[in-house]
């Protein structure tokens, strides 16, 4: 499935704030890491603020701080602020036919599964997943400097 860009930005912003709960982050700081325009990110942060998930801190060194519970807040709750995850419109052509109903059953199976997945992954769980991905990447790809540091073998 594909997420709308605003949902992705919101998830990235929440992860950045959750990883640094001891300080505020500015839109520019978050935007820099992900290559996102400040303008777009500021709109996303506004929505997150209205939902009570972040709060803005004014003044020098100001920015955004997390205000939600990262162990309870799920990806689904963040995404639903920006988009509707149901795959079909309420009144799609043909949805009252038997064929439409059968197709609706299949699509709702997919929707249920998407909701169950996104609704069970909290921001805290995502942070663990990010750590694991980073660790796997380090193990899979040793640093380019490593061979140079290794003493040459004397035969």
């Amino acid at each position, binding site marked *: 499935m594909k997420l709308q860009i605003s949902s992705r930005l919101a998830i990235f912003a929440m992860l950045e704030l959750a990883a640094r709960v001891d300080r505020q982050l500015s839109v520019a700081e978050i935007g820099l890491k992900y290559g996102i325009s400040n303008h777009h990110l500021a709109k996303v942060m506004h929505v997150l603020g209205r939902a009570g998930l972040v709060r803005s801190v004014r003044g020098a060194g100001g920015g955004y701080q997390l205000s939600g519970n990262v*162990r309870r807040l799920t990806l689904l709750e963040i995404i639903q602020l920006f988009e509707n995850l149901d795959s079909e419109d309420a009144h799609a052509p043909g949805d009252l036919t038997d064929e439409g109903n059968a197709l609706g059953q299949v699509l709702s199976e997919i929707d249920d599964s998407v909701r169950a997945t996104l609704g069970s992954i*909290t921001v*805290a*769980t995502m942070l*663990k997943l990010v750590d694991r991905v980073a660790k796997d990447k380090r193990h899979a790809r040793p640093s380019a400097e490593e061979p140079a540091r290794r003493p040459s073998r004397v035969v």
Partner: protein
Amino acid sequence: MAAIDQVARPRTSFSVRRVAAADIGHVIALDERVTGLAKPDYWHDVFERYGKRRLHERIFLVADPFKADARTPILGFIIGEVRAWEFGSAPCGWVFALSVEPRARLRGVGQALFAAISAEFRKAGVGKMRTMVARDNRLHLMFFRSEGMMAGPYIQLEKEVERDAGQS
């Protein structure tokens, strides 16, 4: 009985150990409190099968508080076993029951039980563990996800058995 894992936390202290016959009444009571359904026959049968036999591949653990009181004689339990070649799957550890005393939640009990059964599976020689959770059981889903579990390669399917199934 030797403790498999000992966890000391600021708000509670407990050990994780193998189940004993004396625990079954507490397991039944805890399960009834959590699910609202008493199943004494089921739990006695589970104890016979998972608490006494083939213990190298069947694991029934309880979280035992250092200071037990009448309301929380055990803090939780987890049960699993090594299963091999079902649905063509190589041997893996299956967790099929987990319960934590509601009053003791968010104190690391589930985490300690999960870590202890993972270690037992590892000792039994399997490197993967699985479980199945109802889609609407948000609490369990969130817990297993937080322990790093992801969707596996199998999809669970089901259907209503029709009334005339098998009749010609």
